[in-house]
């Protein structure tokens, strides 16, 4: 499977510097967080990974939920460990993020911020470059204000495809990533799907996802021939969303 592409065509590879990741709607925050983690993850086999850092205000953690490490098994900046910083307010979020980035001690960092001003983003972008780190500002909503971030993303949840062995169950996670602004090229939109076997995000429309799904459906058909209804008696199984 190693010959399969890690990312969809044209998808910008994560790199050092500062990006902004916003949830399309507040309910899409989990998807946005997952995407932000992807953006600050180190490339595999790039030497000893440095730890990752997540910083948020305490109020944010109360309202949005706290990081759950076992759920961060998708690409995370924590190849070398994870540090979670809970602070009092957004001012401290920015301070902690800047300290972490410029120290050179962390490989990637995500900070939950609602509206950093341009000066702050400039300082953060500079600190990220200086520390050789990838950083993402995670926003609950999109913002139009000035920012020194290299790229700006808008992330929305997508309904999953049916699971291979249980169509009534949610399939692999899917999300829609819209690059709303980039300094080095054209904006674009991608649909990504989580590949649990390879532990990567892949193109939801092509690649192994489709193949896997097809295999699962063929198997399901085989079961049906055997007199077994893998989907159970419920009619919900046939409902499609999306």
């Amino acid at each position, binding site marked *: 499977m190693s010959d399969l592409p890690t990312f969809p065509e044209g998808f910008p590879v994560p790199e050092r510097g500062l990006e902004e990741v916003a949830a399309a709607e507040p309910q899409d925050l989990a998807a946005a967080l997952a995407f932000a983690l992807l953006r600050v993850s180190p490339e595999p086999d790039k030497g000893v990974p*440095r730890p990752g850092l997540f910083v948020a205000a305490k109020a944010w953690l109360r309202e949005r939920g706290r990081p*759950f490490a076992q759920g961060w098994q998708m690409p995370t900046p924590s190849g070398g460990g994870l*540090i*979670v910083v809970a602070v009092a307010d957004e001012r401290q979020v920015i301070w902690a993020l800047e300290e972490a980035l410029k120290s050179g001690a962390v490989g990637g960092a995500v900070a939950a911020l609602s509206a950093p001003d341009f000066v702050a983003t400039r300082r953060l972008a500079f600190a990220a470059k200086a520390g050789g780190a990838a950083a993402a500002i995670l926003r609950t909503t999109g913002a139009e204000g000035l920012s020194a971030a290299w790229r700006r993303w808008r992330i929305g949840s*997508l309904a999953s495809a049916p699971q291979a062995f249980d169509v009534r169950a949610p399939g692999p996670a899917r999300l829609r990533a819209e690059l709303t602004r980039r300094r080095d090229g054209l904006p674009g939109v991608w649909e990504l799907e989580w590949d649990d076997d390879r532990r990567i995000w892949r193109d939801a429309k092509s690649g192994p996802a489709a193949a896997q799904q097809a295999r699962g459906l063929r198997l399901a058909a085989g079961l049906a021939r055997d007199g077994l209804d893998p989907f159970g008696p419920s009619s*919900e199984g046939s409902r499609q*969303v999306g």
Partner: protein
Amino acid sequence: MTVWTRSALHQKAPVRSAEGSDPGPIPFALVERNGRGLCLRAVNGAAQKLGLWRGQSQADARAMAPDLVTVPADPAAEALTLKRLALWAERFSPCVALMADGPGVEGLALDMTGGTHLFGGEPAFIAAFEARLAKAGILARVAMADSLGTAWALARFGAMTQIAPAGGAREALADLPVEALRLDPEAVTLLKRFGLQRIGDLYPLPRAGLARRFRGPRAGAMGLKVVERLDQALGFRAEPVVPVRPPPAYRSFQVFAEPITETAGVALYLPDLAKALAEQLQRDGQGARRLTLTGYRVDGATTSIEAGLSAASAQPSHLLRLLKEKGLEALDLGFGIDALMLSAPVAEASVAQQEGLDGERAATEAAALAGLIDRLQAKLGEDAVQTPRPRGSWLPERSEGWDAASSLGFGAFDPVFRPRPILLFHPPERVEAIAELPDSAPARFTWRRVARRVVRAEGPERIAPEWWRLSPASPRPPRTRDYYRIEDETGRRYWLFREGLYGREDQDRTPEWWLHGVFA
């Protein structure tokens, strides 16, 4: 040479865990497992009074005293305690050695050569030493002699005499039992078989003949050592004393008449100490790379703070600032300290050096991480900077622990087979839900006042409470949870659970629904 010895470091009976009652004179013993099973390693006064003794089997001891409280011995902790005491005793002599002869009879050896005049002569020194140990709750006997062997014998077996005058070892030892020679039990048994009970009994014997008879099966490495031990005690043969740590070359020392109990007091004396130390360093053209400030507590413990210097320095003001930045409050003065020592355990020629070569990148990063965590914790508080660790529990909220971050290491998570959310609500949030009995996923639910229709669902994943974690405070016992992974019509994914098994656990309460987390 001075030796002190004590009967047991752990004299204090612990409060009975299940009771919380008066500790009182409870017979108490430390036990260890040896070839004969569980045996007493050390006993306290109350146990001694009942006739229990070191080395007795626990079963026998309990037959005699059923209410004997025993705690497994922790040799590592005991060794540490002894070492701490040795460090504390450095206030009397820079050369302090551990005498780990065995449990319950550990001792220290201090080389006091030419040092007792500082304390007003030998008897006064012994009195002062014993008094200080007694203050720390340690019963000890101190003895002085020319040789380590004789001092040891007097401390352990001497009736009255605690000081063997110069050249008086032979006389002082004559009446002591042969055990006082620090011999293997095997050698002692053999001596007694010969009718040789006192050290003086050995004097008239032909030395060659005696040596010849004390060749055991272990002759090579250990031997039965009778003649060697006798010669050592009598000073005919030198016995090296290995100090617990080499005395630092650079140190300044201050003793107080009255114990200092406040940090302010320490701060008061610090400039003089720093100045004295700096002078020593400057004299040799050296600078300190590491500083240790040690307080000698009246209770027999030491407390210290350490500071590292990125470059060697011998500037009193610099040394002083560094210690103050480190925080003198970190010194735990307890009931007071009666001596302070400032030393430079690591010193080097004070020439600036280049470092930070490419090959040391990892080390640099590690140092940077330590620095970052320190800075974050210093400003935000230790609890604000955390790192997760797997805790081995099926209950999600117990399955990972959040510890104060440290650059020393991160918890490693194995890949999980069971899907887990990216964000977890703690505590879980109540939701209204409608579901088919007994254990179907909800068809719809309302969270934060928004109704959501369930399109796909998987479950239940059943997780029962950890029955052994009893909380007497909680009014109702915890119930089993059924977790469901749910996707709503807008493609958002949630982790819900129903608390309470239908027909099994909720005879008097209906199941409740909770949202515990969200998936990407």
